[in-house]
């Protein structure tokens, strides 16, 4: 009823997507990997802020990954992942032409993107990849975009060229000063907000500590701040409650109510602790993994 009829050319036939890896590229000293995956049905539907859950093989864990780019015409989606544990290590070893066992999506609430004026997009580490799709959507609505992206050193910065092309201003920071400003993205943001008074919205995606810090910076300026949370997930459909986070004193399930939330309302400390819950076992998993 309220759904628009799909245009016939968008009618991808319903068959199990092959989830074949079409392209693969190692970035940031091999700590981050970019992959283009064939998933025509998902590519057709994915909107900024949404993610997939994938499994490498029959015994694999269900791992959430943000859809960084999509190409409905080609029927592909792009993910950027950081190698942090067993599954992401296995993924890095996969070759072009190989298939994922399962990919489900698009998951999560698409972000409501509007034309509002000046928006600052803050990306830390792999968070920049998550931010990229959202930045594209704000660009499409002709907002004034200020990008602030950062990493430890210049080799770990990703998507600099792409973000540069989307943003009206781009600030790059590195902890060691090897590229752009020396320091953290949060410092760059703080300085920017002190001089520019027409910022309507801040998006911050990166490590939890960074999102927490950004939210603390923007609060006194009373600038609405959105963050994208990544608690541990299992099903991604709202069935297990593993991904629950406290936002504004209420329990929300990040997989269906998020993953984006108003950063000023998130209980970061609780989330930080919850993410450590399986740490010992994840180490064991890595230890026992083949490579």
């Amino acid at each position, binding site marked *: 009823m309220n759904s628009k009829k799909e245009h016939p050319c968008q009618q991808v036939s319903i068959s199990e997507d092959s989830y074949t890896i079409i392209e693969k590229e190692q970035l940031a000293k091999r700590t981050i990997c970019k992959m283009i995956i064939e998933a025509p049905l998902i590519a057709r539907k994915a909107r900024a802020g949404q993610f997939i859950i994938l499994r490498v093989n029959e015994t694999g864990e269900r791992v959430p990954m943000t859809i960084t780019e999509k190409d409905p015409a080609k029927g592909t989606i792009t993910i950027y992942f950081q190698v942090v544990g067993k599954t992401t290590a296995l993924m890095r070893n996969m070759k072009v032409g190989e298939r994922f066992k399962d990919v489900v999506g698009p998951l999560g609430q698409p972000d409501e993107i509007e034309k509002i004026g000046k928006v600052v997009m803050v990306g830390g580490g792999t968070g920049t990849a998550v931010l990229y799709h959202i930045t594209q959507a704000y660009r499409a609505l002709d907002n004034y975009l200020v990008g602030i992206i950062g990493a430890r050193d210049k080799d770990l910065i990703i998507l600099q060229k792409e973000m540069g092309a989307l943003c009206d201003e781009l600030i790059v920071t590195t902890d060691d000063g090897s590229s752009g400003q020396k320091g953290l993205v949060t410092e760059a943001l703080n300085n920017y907000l002190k001089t520019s008074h027409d910022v309507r919205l801040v998006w911050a995606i990166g490590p939890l500590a960074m999102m927490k810090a950004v939210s603390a910076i923007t609060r006194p300026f009373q600038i609405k701040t959105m963050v994208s949370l990544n608690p541990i997930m*299992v099903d991604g459909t709202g069935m297990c409650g593993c991904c629950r986070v406290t936002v504004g004193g209420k329990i929300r399930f990040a997989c269906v109510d998020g993953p984006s939330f108003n950063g000023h309302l998130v209980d970061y400390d609780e989330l930080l602790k919850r993410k450590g819950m399986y740490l010992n076992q994840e180490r064991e998993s890595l230890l*026992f993994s083949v490579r």
Partner: protein
Amino acid sequence: MEQKTQAEKINRQKMPEQNVSSRIRNFDEVPLGYDPQTAQREASRCIMCKNPKCVEGCPVEIDIPAFVKLIKEGKFLEAIYKIKEKNALPAVCGRVCPQEDQCEKMCLLGLKGEPVGIGNLERFAADYEYTQPLAEVKKPTSPTGHKAAVVGSGPSGLTVAADLALLGHEVTIFEALHEPGGVLIYGIPEFRLPKAIVKREIDYLKSLGVKVFNNMIIGKIFTVDELFDRGFEAVYLGVGAGLPVFMGIPGENLNGILSANEFLSRVNLMKGYEFPDTDTPVYVGNHVAVIGGGNVAMDCARTSLRLGAKRVTVLYRRSRREMPARLDEVIRAEEEGIIFHYLTNPIRYLSNEQNWVKAIECIRMELAEPDESGRRNVIPIAGSEQTIEFDTVLVAVGAGANPVLSSTTPDLKLNSRGYYIADPVTGLTSKPRVFAGGDIVTGSATVISAMGAGRRSAQAIHKMLMGIQDTPTTD
């Protein structure tokens, strides 16, 4: 007459079980099944009532005396075909149905002694079939050319799919998870319902020509309307009650506190009990508390034990009599050493420095007089608070309606709790050509009631597709 006296002499045949000390260390099935002789002996206890009450107790009206008689005569395959006329998943139902509240409750033998082991016999017949070379499967009637979509592959979706396929319709199942089966796969543990059985049932469906697409969440990848755009002429929603309920008490987000769904999914769906051979970790500490008193709570408790917990305690706010779990499962849990604290309700969780739960503050409850509905409410006894140490808490206090599909289907009417409103006979919802049944309509219920709903909807969908009169319409 002679039959009758003979029947009364034989006691109900016990089904052999794995002994307690070994079963609490493995995930293999606990009851081991009847051998043919035992099954025949048990079947011979049936007094073949003229007006069999047991059939009335069966939500799908299996011709129980007929199949029991066939078993008695050694015609085991015929017995299973008789059951399958009414029940597409007998190997599942023989294991998990609450027979004590259904067919066996009505059995006349139960008045004086023990009822016929109808569930055990159903299981026997179903298992027997699998030991035989694949018999001729019932072939669908000639194709009708009509297309139906089934959303969700729990017992209710599987039943609709099988029935519609047999009637010659082209059926496609869309399942959100990476494996079909619903609660049968992600919820009920291996030691109660081996997953191989569920897989066999799915294979049977596929042999009927049913297409099963995993990893497809309706409401996300397609809306219900988009399914119609793609040529489906009817949609059945059997999406279950997949939303975990928390109690909303302080400390519930501490580490070590999981919903039953999360715990059981990690173990069953993700095979966490084989970690690290599989990649999904599942944590169980030394002292596990399970909150709740239903089947889900029993499954959590017995699973924790098998994962190595030293002490597992069920906290239930009413008394043993009110526990909704199947009595068999309660007894097995007790045999396995699960501790039960009745009339006890958690009010607050306490944590250690690492944000892990370390204890539960509980309060004693007392049963109030039964209300009009006969249900006994509980009231907390002031001043009875006590603190018990636990390092893992599994919350199994019920389930709710998952909004993922309904939130994208605005013309689907819901009740105040978010469940879909559907016609009790046909399953038709407020949205034309959309039917629903199972837990998403009734709230958490049973496998067999979900199947019964599926069966009735299949008939209604068939009539609608074929334009047979008394077609349900919403106009």
